[in-house]
């Protein structure tokens, strides 16, 4: 075939691929927006579910998901970032660090339902946290820990070795070099990893089913040791276990829409933070 024809065909094929992807995303979002839009109101966000969850709002589920995101991030971010710093900046290359890295990589590929079962065994039963916000949050933080560690480590690797050397050669300690040169430079990449994990924490259903998400609670959780409702699980229950799933269709799509907006909102905050730091680095 004429190379120019091949070139054209290849280009068209690549463009078709990206259009298929864009089309799917657009249809998905549009469909949820159209289906969920009608029920959207301030009351939907701030009221308790009523009448066997066929009426009313999703307030407790929204708050439950907010708690989950907040607590699991508060645990996973420091733990993950500090582990990545240790692995990349301090640990010498040896058999044991190789094993640790392999373990982290495998953990990243473990199905979330396995994490749910593990959370049930460790936090709910062994540590006797009961099915609760804290059990579920800790389980979710374990789930995203490998993602945070890997993203942070990748970000640390991209910081040029010359910058570390320049700082050390000025008589700056290793820790000071890391905290004032390496970490700020790696921050945009680390934030990207965090963005990815926020979406997972907000959306995961399997791990929280085992560790504390309630079918229905007519009130907000009293403490981190209370059971809770969460958006993805609420959605799952409405769609599968109600007496008449058709009856609650609008609420289901409304819940999905809120979940989507919540994740996009948190992500855009993270993107703004990332932009701010990029600018500070004069990139």
């Amino acid at each position, binding site marked *: 075939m004429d190379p120019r024809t091949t070139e054209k065909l290849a280009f068209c094929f690549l463009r078709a691929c990206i259009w298929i992807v864009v089309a799917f995303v657009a249809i998905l979002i549009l469909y949820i927006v159209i289906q969920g839009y009608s029920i959207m109101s301030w009351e939907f966000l701030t009221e308790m579910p009523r009448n066997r969850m066929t009426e009313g709002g999703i307030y407790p589920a929204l708050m439950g998901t907010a708690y989950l995101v907040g607590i699991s991030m508060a645990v996973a971010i420091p733990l993950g970032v500090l582990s990545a710093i240790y692995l990349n900046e301090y640990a*010498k*290359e040896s058999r044991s660090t190789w094993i640790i890295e392999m373990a982290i990589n495998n953990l990243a590929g473990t199905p979330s339902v396995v994490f749910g079962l593990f959370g049930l065994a460790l936090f709910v039963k062994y540590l006797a946290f009961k099915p609760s916000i804290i059990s579920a949050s800790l389980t979710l933080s374990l789930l995203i820990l490998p993602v945070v560690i890997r993203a942070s480590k990748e970000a640390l690797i991209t910081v*040029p070795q*010359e*910058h570390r*050397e*320049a*700082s*050390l*050669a*000025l*008589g*700056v*300690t290793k820790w*000071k070099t890391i905290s*004032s*040169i390496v970490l700020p*430079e790696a921050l945009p990449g680390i934030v990207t990893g965090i963005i990815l994990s926020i979406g997972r924490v907000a959306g995961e259903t399997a791990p929280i089913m085992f560790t504390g998400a309630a079918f229905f609670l007519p009130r907000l959780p009293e403490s981190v040791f209370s059971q809770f409702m969460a958006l993805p699980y609420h959605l799952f229950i409405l769609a599968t276990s109600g007496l008449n799933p058709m009856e609650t269709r609008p609420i289901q799509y409304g819940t999905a829409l809120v979940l989507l907006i919540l994740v996009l909102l948190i992500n855009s905050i993270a993107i703004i933070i990332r932009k701010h730091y990029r600018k500070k*680095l*004069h*990139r």
Partner: protein
Amino acid sequence: MSEINNFADIEVEDLNLWYGSNQALQDINIKIPSKSVTALIGPSGCGKSTFLRCINRMNDLIKVCHIEGRVKIDNKNIYDEDVDVVELRKKVGMVFQKPNPFPMSVFDNIAYGPKIHKVPKKDIKGIVDKTLQDSALYGEVSDRLDSSALDLSGGQQQRLCIARTMAVEPEIILFDEPCSALDPISTNKIEDLILELKKDYTIVIVTHNMQQAARISDYTAFFLMGKIIEFGETNQIFENPKEKRTEDYITGRFG
């Protein structure tokens, strides 16, 4: 090896260095005189950069590196157990081959060292101005201290790195092929700067450029395969080398 009788800042005795099982430096003995420029020349892989990095212990960063012997600065062996490497590196600054400013403003690049070494805030502006003047950069960047150091030209970046090194007030400055990534005009400016700096600092410079060594150094050491073949006043090394191998290298017969 000719004796140099000036007061020596850096005295190296029986220095041997291995990377794993590969010996990179062999029985190095040299006295580097104070407040002068000493050039280290030799073909690639001869150990001159490795030697330079022994003087501020940058080789500590390399895990497989093993060192024996003594490097004395002000009569103190810097490889003694009780030496604080951080303090040593404050005293022995280093300018690298590739300009490596931090991704910060010009001002913050220079202020970084003093800030970390707890210089009072009110003094920092003065230090930045002074080091910029001393590094002959002030005229070019005084109106954009707040803009990114990465926007400067390569030569300006390298002078900024020199200013950054001076800001922590070292006694010795090590230059590791500081001009190899620069154009001739920038190289010229750096060379002028080094000649200016030797009034206040002891300077050791690794260079691939023989003319550069001849132009700016007072003393020259010729390295070959991990050994110092000859060390003496630069004029003598270039005009009247005692060793055949030095002459061969300088006249371009190998290397």
